[in-house]
């Protein structure tokens, strides 16, 4: 199809240059599928704009599909509808002030984002974190992973046609919200980690809720397996759909469960263990098929592993402080702030100037967030604000994979493949 025809079909009235270049890029995209004859008597080729307001695109993702009948010839993705410029904002905030913004990046698992930022800042400013804080962070991160995977599971099954399942996974998510409420004081955007530790210790109520959750959740998981594993509809809709080979996955830069479902066990909890992941036992689930079903199995098994990690953390949870006692590096505890002059001064200094890493220092730290490698790169100029803070997000990399694996699939499978890749636009668009 020629550009003139495509553009005349689209008739952009808004951001004309952007739209025209977008259509042009679809026209230019190299594809191995052979060209069909130019005259198209049945008029079966069409350009389909999907999103950005489509409910199955998990946010504001826009896809431009060139179709031949029901099959997709090629795809282009348009992202940036949720671009808020958080990297620019970060350059004008102290490190601690920036934390609430990280909650809103991958809003399905805010805890991992907080921890990722803290670990990067602690690396660049050489802050020691108490043992207990490490374990609390690990518990929080694994709960966030379960919560994120539960949302993914619900929406994937809904994309495949079963709506009621979504409510069941959300019932479990609700329990995690309650745990977060008790543990951190917020249900959704938690902001619990602090530079040098965490905001507060686990309360007895939160401890009780976590224990109850890890005792009841395995049964729920078992039910999910029973319902889906050999469900003919679910199986057929996902098997051999959106296949990604190992070589392609490494070459296009797939991350997290998408890469592991394609057969390469790259997990940053193992690659460069952070927190205390080297002291707990867990497996890295991997599948070789690389299709959507493999991604389903990998994420389901990851939930089992997360439970295993939480159990070990609760057993090993050491006693002690939850935040470093160095007033130059971390906020003092609230008791100190309210009842001593020094505490108050330190609290003010931390809020006003914040922690100052050495001039010219650079650091990159990556954690394994539920979606994959989440890395923070920080350059410091010696002040309390980062000179440059770059967030490399897994969803962004995985959307690039999506652009490749959609080619040659059926139009009806689009939403299932998007669901399997599990992008979060808040994170991809930054």
């Amino acid at each position, binding site marked *: 199809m020629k550009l003139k025809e495509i553009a005349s079909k689209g008739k952009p009235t*808004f951001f004309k240059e952007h739209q*025209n270049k977008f259509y042009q890029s679809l026209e230019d995209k190299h594809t191995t599928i052979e060209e069909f004859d130019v005259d198209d008597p049945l008029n079966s080729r069409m350009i389909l704009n999907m999103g950005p307001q489509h409910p199955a695109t998990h946010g504001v993702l826009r896809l431009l599909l060139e179709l031949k009948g029901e099959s997709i010839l090629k795809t282009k993705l348009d992202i940036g509808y949720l*671009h808020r410029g958080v990297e620019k904002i970060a350059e004008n905030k102290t490190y601690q002030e920036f934390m609430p913004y990280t909650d809103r990046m991958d809003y399905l698992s805010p805890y991992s984002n907080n921890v990722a930022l803290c670990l990067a800042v602690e690396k660049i400013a050489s802050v020691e974190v108490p043992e207990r804080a490490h374990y609390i962070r690990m518990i929080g991160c694994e709960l966030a992973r379960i919560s994120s995977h539960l949302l993914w599971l619900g929406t994937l099954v809904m994309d495949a046609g079963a709506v009621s399942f979504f409510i069941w996974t959300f019932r479990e998510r609700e329990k995690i919200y309650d745990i977060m409420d008790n543990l951190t004081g917020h249900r959704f955007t938690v902001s619990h980690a602090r530079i040098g530790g965490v905001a507060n210790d686990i309360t007895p109520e939160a401890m009780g809720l976590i224990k109850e959750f890890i005792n009841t959740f395995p049964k729920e998981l078992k039910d999910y397996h029973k319902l889906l594993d050999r469900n003919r509809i679910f199986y057929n809709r996902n098997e051999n759909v959106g296949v990604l080979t190992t070589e392609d996955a490494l070459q*296009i830069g797939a991350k997290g469960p998408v890469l592991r479902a394609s057969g390469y066990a790259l997990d940053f909890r193992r*690659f460069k263990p952070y927190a205390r992941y080297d002291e707990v036992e867990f497996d890295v689930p991997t599948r070789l098929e690389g299709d959507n079903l493999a991604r389903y199995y990998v994420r389901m098994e990851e939930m089992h592993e997360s439970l295993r990690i939480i159990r070990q953390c609760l057993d090993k949870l050491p006693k002690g402080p939850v935040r470093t006692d160095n007033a130059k590096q971390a906020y003092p505890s609230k008791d100190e702030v309210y009842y001593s002059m020094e505490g108050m001064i330190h609290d003010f200094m931390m809020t006003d100037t914040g922690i100052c890493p050495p001039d010219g220092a650079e*650091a*990159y730290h990556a954690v394994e967030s539920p979606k994959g490698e989440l890395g923070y790169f920080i350059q410091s100029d010696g002040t309390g604000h980062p000179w440059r803070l770059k967030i490399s997000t897994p969803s962004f990399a995985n959307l690039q994979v999506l652009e490749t694996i959609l080619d040659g699939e059926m139009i009806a499978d689009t939403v299932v493949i998007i669901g399997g890749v599990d992008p979060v636009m808040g994170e991809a668009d930054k």
Partner: protein
Amino acid sequence: MELDLSPALQKTTNGLTETFSEKIIEVYQTSGDTFIRIPSDSVIEICRYLKDEHRYTFLSDVIGTDRYTSEDRFEVIYNLISLRDRERLFVKVWLPEENPEIESVTSIWKSANWFEREVYDMFGIRFLNHPDHRRIYMPEDYQYFPLRKEFPLLGIPGSIEMPNTTPDKE
């Protein structure tokens, strides 16, 4: 400065300095990460060497920074992972303020496609021979590069066309 390198990274840096003795500007470590700075015209050959000889098969990210007052204003950092050695290496390139452009590494790692588009979108660094050189977050009609230091935090009023929300009135 004395470097504290792991055996695999030591082998990589030795290999690099032997093969490209003239072209390695500096090797340094900060906060435990290893950075190698190279001139912008040799990025392709050094990246290909790293991929072929030392198995840096995974490009994790491409980072752009603005050094603002420095002589070579822009910086592009390639975040490489060697899956065989389980090591991470950062390759750095400095680019001048006037007309910053560099050869694209999409021929070596396909994943560089979107990463380089992001750097172009935010800093205006052009990547030569890039297969799909468009902006990624901002619309194509936008004329500024938001992460450059001179770009104001509040944005530039009127720089972006807003949709007409009252279609009845002209």
